């Protein structure tokens, strides 16, 4: 197992360098100069341009800029945002807890509903429940997030008034960030009703962000289960009179988990980086919107730093998923 972990960790190094290089060069490959974008319609003179370019260090050869960036990154310095003039590191960690909180909730939501739904559909293959569930999953998977979010807001916040429209907590509650996780901070604040308000604010964004992973997990679980249910050892288990609950719940599900975990692992990456629309609609102060804004402003340090941090997170999640394979399937860990 230790060798397995080490070999996985070693693959980290080339991936990390690759990601650094890609994030550095991609934003620069986009047409558009951050200084010109900043000046907008007002424009600026050639001298002023040269001055600013020198000030930001963009007049130096690209390899020098990359080298400085790389050495900075290795020392934990991701640079300073071109727009807000604050360190990228600080900005990221001020916003990341919000994205993480939402992503974790969405993940839990999609697993808790998706796994059982997939199992039930597989067991009832071809019956009404299976068909209804898979059609719903297809709809969920193809739904435009933007439209889905607005629909939920109009129905549940507008017409029914059950949930707040957007934000992380009611504006009446004010307490400084302790952890950045609103669910924790609201309890720590000791203010009556703060936690309830934070939970209510999470409901709609969680559903919206969790919809696609939910559909994917349900479909993946169903097909993996179907495959396993056709195996000989399941027939043997049935033949020796084992209860269906035991067969499905323990023997079949555990063996069906490998592809499901892969999908869950991949979804985490999508959730972290892809919460952009959800965050924008629900005014959720996370990293998705921050990254998009920065791309439009050609805020090089933020885009490259943010991409790098997200990539590292995804790499860590994938590593964890690889470890989980080993836990679930001893054959993998011995290899």
């Amino acid at each position, binding site marked *: 197992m230790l060798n397995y972990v080490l070999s996985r960790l070693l693959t980290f190094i080339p991936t990390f360098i690759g990601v650094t290089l890609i994030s550095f060069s991609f934003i620069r490959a986009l047409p558009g100069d951050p200084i010109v974008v900043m000046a907008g319609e007002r424009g600026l003179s050639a001298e002023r341009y040269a001055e600013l370019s020198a000030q930001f260090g963009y007049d130096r050869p690209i390899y020098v800029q990359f080298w400085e960036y790389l050495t900075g990154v290795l020392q934990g310095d991701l640079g300073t945002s071109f727009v807000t003039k604050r360190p990228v590191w600080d900005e990221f960690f*001020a916003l990341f807890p919000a994205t993480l909180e939402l992503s974790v909730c969405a993940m839990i939501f999609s697993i808790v509903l998706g796994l059982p739904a997939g199992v039930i559909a597989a067991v009832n293959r071809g019956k009404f429940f299976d068909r209804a569930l898979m059609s719903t999953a297809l709809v969920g998977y193809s739904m435009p997030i933007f439209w889905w979010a607005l629909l939920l807001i109009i129905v549940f916040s*507008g017409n029914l008034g059950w949930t707040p429209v957007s934000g992380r907590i009611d504006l009446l509650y004010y307490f400084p960030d302790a952890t950045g996780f609103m669910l924790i901070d609201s309890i720590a604040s000791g203010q009556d009703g703060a936690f309830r308000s934070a939970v209510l604010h999470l409901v709609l964004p969680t559903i919206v962000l969790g919809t696609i992973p939910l559909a994917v997990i349900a479909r993946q679980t169903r097909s993996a289960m179907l495959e396993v249910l056709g195996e000989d050892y399941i027939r043997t288990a049935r033949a020796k009179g084992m209860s269906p609950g035991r067969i499905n719940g323990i023997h079949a599900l555990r063996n069906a988990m490998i592809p499901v975990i892969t999908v869950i692992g991949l979804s985490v990456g999508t959730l972290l980086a892809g919460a952009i629309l959800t965050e924008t609609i629900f005014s959720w102060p996370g990293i998705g919107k921050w990254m998009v804004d920065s791309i439009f402003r050609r805020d090089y340090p933020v885009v490259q730093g943010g991409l790098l941090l997200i990539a590292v997170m995804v790499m860590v999640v994938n590593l964890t998923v690889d470890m989980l394979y080993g836990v679930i399937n001893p054959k993998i860990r011995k290899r």
Partner: protein
Amino acid sequence: MSLKYTLAAGLLMTTLGVSASAQSLVYCSEGSPEGFDPALYTAGTTFDASSHPLYDHLTEFKVGTTEVLPGLAESWEVSEDGMTVTFKLREGVQFHANDQFTPTRDFNADDVIFSFDRQGNPDNPYNQVSGGTWEYFSSMSMPDLVESIEKVDDYTVVFNLTRPEAPFIANMAMDFASILSKEYADAMMEAGTPEMLNQQPIGTGPFTFQAYQKDAVIRYLRNDEYWGDKAKVESLIFAITPDASVRYQKVQAGECHIMAYPNPADVQAMKDDESIVVMEQEGLNVGYLAYNTKVAPFDNVNVRKALNMAIDKQSIIDVVFQGSGQIAKNPIPPTMWSYNDAVEDDAYDPEAAKAMLAEEGVEDLSLKIWAMPVQRPYNPNARRMAELMQADMAKIGVDVEIVSYEWGEYLERSKAEDRDGAVLLGWTGDNGDPDNFLAVLLGCDGVGAANRAQWCNEEFDAKLQEAKVLSDQSERAKLYEEAQVIFKEEAPWATIAHSVVYMTMRPEVEGYVVHPLGGHIFNQVGLSQ
């Protein structure tokens, strides 16, 4: 109301939203400020959150007009030759305090000098702090214009200029001219945290800064020591809500009292909704199509006029602006002084346009129209606008090709004097002065730069130069009115539209005034019980 009571009430009223707490005004803003030191930035969203609630300026715009009033300067005097401006400063004005800083003295001349010196003097310790680029200061030509600033005594400051410049007094009311505390700046420099000036702002304005959570919320408290009319609400909250439909939902649900920038498509529904109040005003902007007057056949005024007559502006207003715009006939908006309402616009007449082109011997004309890749108040959808123009031009036998570039490229390439094609672009005013539109966009100095029509008309330019050095507004207005007549005759642009700015609010909001300069100002806004 005690805090405990407010919270209990809040709990009770969670579903009813903020309307229960009459002392907090909640504004659904469209985005996050870049920072809180206005001189470092150029975006209106940043100014709404910094310059207006937190700071004062030597002069101030009267909210709702472009008229200039005394601010931190009680009065000013311009010398005979227009080269020296003397400001008499207000006494007894206090700066805000925060956890790190408590002012030991009142506002005085040192603060004024510091606020400008840091922007123009490379040796000022704050010149490079927060990557200071001072874009607005430069783009208003302040480095060339201001020779020196002198302190005569604690409450008298003299600006020595390099040339007479009538709009200078209005420039002092602009956001980049916000007055910061030198004492605070020195204290933060000493503490090794000069960036606090931008992150924990201290000003003299009607609100004090309480807290900012990036992309979520900004909180302000009323400044009870304010020298002028004190704010009507105890606290002001900006709930940052980037999506326009969501902002509208929040206003309906009572989670916000007031919002900016509704979707044009929602405006009619808002007007029909009795529980919502919609205010509107023409924005201080203009959207235009600039021909390249240096390239044949567009150097021929009759060709330009013919093309102008081919454009159906009303359909553009209906389709592109969805009603939230107004046809433009002059290069300056109607809310600006010196707007010449007597000017007649080129009538929409494709037949006459066709005949005019034939008369000039122009056949098989083809034209590139540049469509901006971004949304702007003066042009919400340039691509769509270009397509409509393409269809209009086809009716008179002109073949139009639509081109576009990434925004930065677009701005750069469109400056070229040999540019192929006509450019869709626009402008939003800075200081409410006509010079800020006419000279910047159409003056001879701007050829090869902001003057996208590459148009240099000596008669027109002479009027602008003359008006710039006069200090009497009515004399200046007369010259600008004449300049607008020349502009219309010469047709370097097709003037297209001025946007209409909407502000959506709940009925309990009292005293909000739409500001023609574009800012959202809540200093005198209250809530009825």
